[in-house]
């Protein structure tokens, strides 16, 4: 008996498969080396850094205002959330708050950005595991969001919408009409997406139980955002540590139970619905007033003042040539971006440039768990897991 078993147990060589640095399923440039035994992944090694541009070093040599465009290029699928997160950090350092109207506009921008990010994540994740149709249906709405963004700030991807102490432009009536139309059209589109995916047997089989992660493990790895919520913890900084007046909006925080790819998908879908809910409340209650703080030491004065008064001209020149002067000290400010906790740790020595600026990207700790997560799964599952973690290389490498 034993001899026969020995003969059946044929030893095979392990195979090394390179995914990336440039590969259709790595969204951005990542390099994953998979060690396979047949179809099963035995070990995996990830190499990152292909998109490293030294954002933190550049930040040390720019004024506070000039760092805003760099934040666009971190999580490029929801750059507006990064803008808001960064300016909130600087506002905390200065000890100011943007005017009420600007705060509501920032909430609107944030929630639209969150929807856009989740559309990308879900759409691409579905494409990677073979469900192309859902992607085609849902991506139309990302385009509508970008149309709104381009009316709000003049750009679709590199938004740079916020300024220290407010936002760069006011919303006009046409944009508000576009947002209202979007809010009417989008919920049926989520239903359509769910009809295509949620009860889809093939999608369910490909995602249920894949990349299952326990809550303890998720906390050990520093998970935040949808991936942590999918593991079963109701954790959302918008609820736990409200900023921008999020305590005034009614919304719920969805959670999963098993923390697998399917749960992450469900959490993201429900979050899009909740974002629509927040947007509906925000768009009806935009207060009147200025959109940027009236302090010539922090925000640019209005153009009439610059052209007609000497004070306006001087403060304009001082701001452009020198920048905003902030008090010396250190702060850490975190916001709930689409991927999780986006934190900015700023050390200031009282100059117009930060002494040290550290970006805490949400997907860096999440991706560090990838090697452990894929072990024992099939090659095709690695693709599903990678998509569900929503790795954005620009944010990962900075």
């Amino acid at each position: 008996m034993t001899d026969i078993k020995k003969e059946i147990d044929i030893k095979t060589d392990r195979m090394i498969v390179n995914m990336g640095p440039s590969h259709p399923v790595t969204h951005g440039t990542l390099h994953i080396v998979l060690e396979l035994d047949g179809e099963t992944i035995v070990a995996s090694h990830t190499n990152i850094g292909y998109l490293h541009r030294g954002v933190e070093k550049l930040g040390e040599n720019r004024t506070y205002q000039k760092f805003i465009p760099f934040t666009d290029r971190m999580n490029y699928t929801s750059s507006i959330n990064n803008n808001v997160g960064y300016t909130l950090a600087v506002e905390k350092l200065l000890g100011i708050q943007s005017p009420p109207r600007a705060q509501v506009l920032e909430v609107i921008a944030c929630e639209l950005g969150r929807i856009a990010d989740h559309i990308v994540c879900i759409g691409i994740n579905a494409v990677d595991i073979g469900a192309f149709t859902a992607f085609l249906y849902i991506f139309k709405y990302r385009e509508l969001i970008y149309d709104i963004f381009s009316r709000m700030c003049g750009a679709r991807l590199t938004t740079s919408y916020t300024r220290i102490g407010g936002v760069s432009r006011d919303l006009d009536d046409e944009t508000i009409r576009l947002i209202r139309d979007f809010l009417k059209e989008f919920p049926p589109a989520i239903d359509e997406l769910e009809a295509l995916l949620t009860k889809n047997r093939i999608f369910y089989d490909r995602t249920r139980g894949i990349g299952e992660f326990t809550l303890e493990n998720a906390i050990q790895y520093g998970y935040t955002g949808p991936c942590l919520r999918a593991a079963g913890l109701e954790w959302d900084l918008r609820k736990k540590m409200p900023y921008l007046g999020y305590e005034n909006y009614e919304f719920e925080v969805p959670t999963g139970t098993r923390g697998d790819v399917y749960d992450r998908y469900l959490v993201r879908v429900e979050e899009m619905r909740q974002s629509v809910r927040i947007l509906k409340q925000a768009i009806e209650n935009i207060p009147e007033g200025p959109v940027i703080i009236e302090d010539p030491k922090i925000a640019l004065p209005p153009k009439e003042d610059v052209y007609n008064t000497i004070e306006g001209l001087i403060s304009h020149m001082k701001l452009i040539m020198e920048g905003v002067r902030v008090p010396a000290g250190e702060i850490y400010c975190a916001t709930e971006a689409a991927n999780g906790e986006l934190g900015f740790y700023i050390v200031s020595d009282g100059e117009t440039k930060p002494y040290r600026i550290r970006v805490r990207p949400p997907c860096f700790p999440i991706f560090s768990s990838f090697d452990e997560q894929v072990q024992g799964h099939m090659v095709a599952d690695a693709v599903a897991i990678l998509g569900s973690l929503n790795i954005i290389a620009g944010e990962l490498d900075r």
Partner: protein
Amino acid sequence: MKQTIGLLTKYFGEGIEVQTGLRDETFILLKDASRIKEAMELLRDNGFSMLIDLTAVHYPGREKQFELVYNMLAMEPLLRLLLKVPLEGEYPEVDSVSSVFKTANWYEREVFDMFGIRFKDHPNLKRILMWEDYEGHPLRKEFPLEGDNLHCYD
């Protein structure tokens, strides 16, 4: 938060110093870098279950040039604590906490890559953002912004 500070003072005595931050943060300075692992284990077992961030700051003018910043988060209730550890020397070495928090593994690699701080008993201390045969540590203050021209294509 008072409870945690009380616990830390009880455990470390003179070894820690509480600094009030500019806004609402609490900074705790751990003077003895060799006890970092103890401190992290103590914090982890007393509610601070997540290591949100680990980074360093370079102060070339000071006697202790580097300062590691461990950004801790307690979930119930929500508390944030930033543990600062000053380090001495040009290329200091400190105990790795990757056995306490798994997420520290990559963060420590990043600090090593960017600042040249080495971590004892780290399972895989390699460069993470820059490539492996790169020389220099970009986030040190003496590193020029435009790079060192060693790796330019000519």
